[in-house]
């Protein structure tokens, strides 16, 4: 399968407002000051604790990161004379800073809030502890900055293994997915599979927000799998563990007959087990994918049937050598 023409999207920056929207929805972040600066861009997934910058050392100041203020920074600022603090902050603000985040519901010196209002630097606050705030922000930002792409195919959760079914238009991807749903599995996305990398080795498929769990079946038109089969047969998000490419049956092509060799496909930097499945009338592709998913689980549990059987045979042959 040729993925060289796959268009990979990677965000250069995200506005603070987007981060805030997520953080207020799922976590308990509130915006204390600097409202007019919420469109400021965040360029890095990492955070910075600006202790050294507050003490006056501004070389190597990681200004482009979200600045986290915990107990240490807040109490350090409280010990400073107001004029001195204003001066330090002024120096810091000569750099572009995306936002400040306070942990533990800490209340900063009013001078910080006043200046952030004047400069338009958003100040966010959370009740969580500093280490939790930091790990949540980093987790969220790495997700936002991770590469993503859209693949023409179908994603189904089969026995807990996210299966990505790809192949030429008309080969029967949607029909295979429909049969899998019919057999009790869950549809993630049909036709347009949004793929996102998380961490270094996790690839996730996501449902498209516009078409949701609708699919197009030639001869029927557009159907809604959730409405027809219920919420139990759909999901919005699934880690991909297997790629199955459907292709036309070719007598001359050599397909994998033993399962000894393992093939992988690299999708936006994640290696996924990959198999080619020849299709011809009367061959039940859904069952083959079902078994492939089960076999994949078996392998992950340490049982590699093809290899184990072959090793047994080789051992027995060795014993009989005359």
């Amino acid at each position, binding site marked *: 399968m040729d993925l060289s023409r796959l*268009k990979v999207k990677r965000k250069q920056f995200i506005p603070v407002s987007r981060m805030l929207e997520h953080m207020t929805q799922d976590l308990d972040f509130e915006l204390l000051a600097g409202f007019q600066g919420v469109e400021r861009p965040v360029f890095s997934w990492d955070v910075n604790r600006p202790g050294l910058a507050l003490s006056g050392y501004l070389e190597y100041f990681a200004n482009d990161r979200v600045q986290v203020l915990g107990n240490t920074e807040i109490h350090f600022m409280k010990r400073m004379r107001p004029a001195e603090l204003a001066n330090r902050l002024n120096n810091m603000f000569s750099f572009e800073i995306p936002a400040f985040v306070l942990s533990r519901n800490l209340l900063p010196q009013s001078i910080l809030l006043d200046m952030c209002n004047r400069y338009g630097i958003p100040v966010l606050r959370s009740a969580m502890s500093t280490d939790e705030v930091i790990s949540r922000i980093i987790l969220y930002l790495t997700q936002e900055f991770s590469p993503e792409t*859209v693949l*023409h195919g179908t994603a189904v959760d089969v026995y807990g293994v996210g299966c990505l079914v790809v192949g030429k238009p008309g080969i029967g991807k949607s029909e295979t997915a429909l049969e899998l749903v019919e057999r009790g599995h869950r549809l993630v996305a049909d*036709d*347009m599979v949004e793929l996102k990398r998380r961490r270094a080795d996790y690839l996730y498929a996501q449902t498209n927000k*516009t*078409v949701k769990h609708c699919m*197009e079946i030639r001869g029927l038109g557009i159907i809604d799998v959730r409405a027809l089969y219920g919420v139990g047969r759909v999901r919005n998000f699934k880690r991909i563990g297997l790629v199955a490419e459907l292709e036309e049956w070719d007598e001359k092509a050599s397909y994998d007959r033993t399962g000894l060799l393992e093939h992988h496909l690299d999708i936006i930097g994640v290696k996924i087990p990959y198999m080619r499945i020849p299709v011809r009338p009367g061959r039940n592709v859904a069952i083959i994918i079902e078994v492939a998913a089960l076999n994949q689980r078996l392998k992950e549990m340490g049982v590699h049937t093809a290899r184990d059987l072959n090793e047994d045979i080789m051992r027995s042959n060795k014993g009989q050598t005359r």
Partner: protein
Amino acid sequence: MTEVTEEVMVVNALGMHARPAAALVQTTLRFESDVHINFRGNTVNGKSIMGLLTLGAARGSRLSVTCFGPDAEEALAAVRQMFASGFGED
């Protein structure tokens, strides 16, 4: 293998909805070349109805069409013609 890219505009009043998407797919499927359509940074397969529906392209939207393959020129000409005619709609 040739690759051609061109900008087309949605001229029909209702934009890219189910009927135009189906008509477009019917056309693109006749060609061997890959057809990709990009709008606002999202690229979709021009042979997929669901893909085209996700574009959310209203009248006046400018889409970038890329055809890649042995009959890319012909595919692009057919796509261009369909957009220009408003898919037979007002």
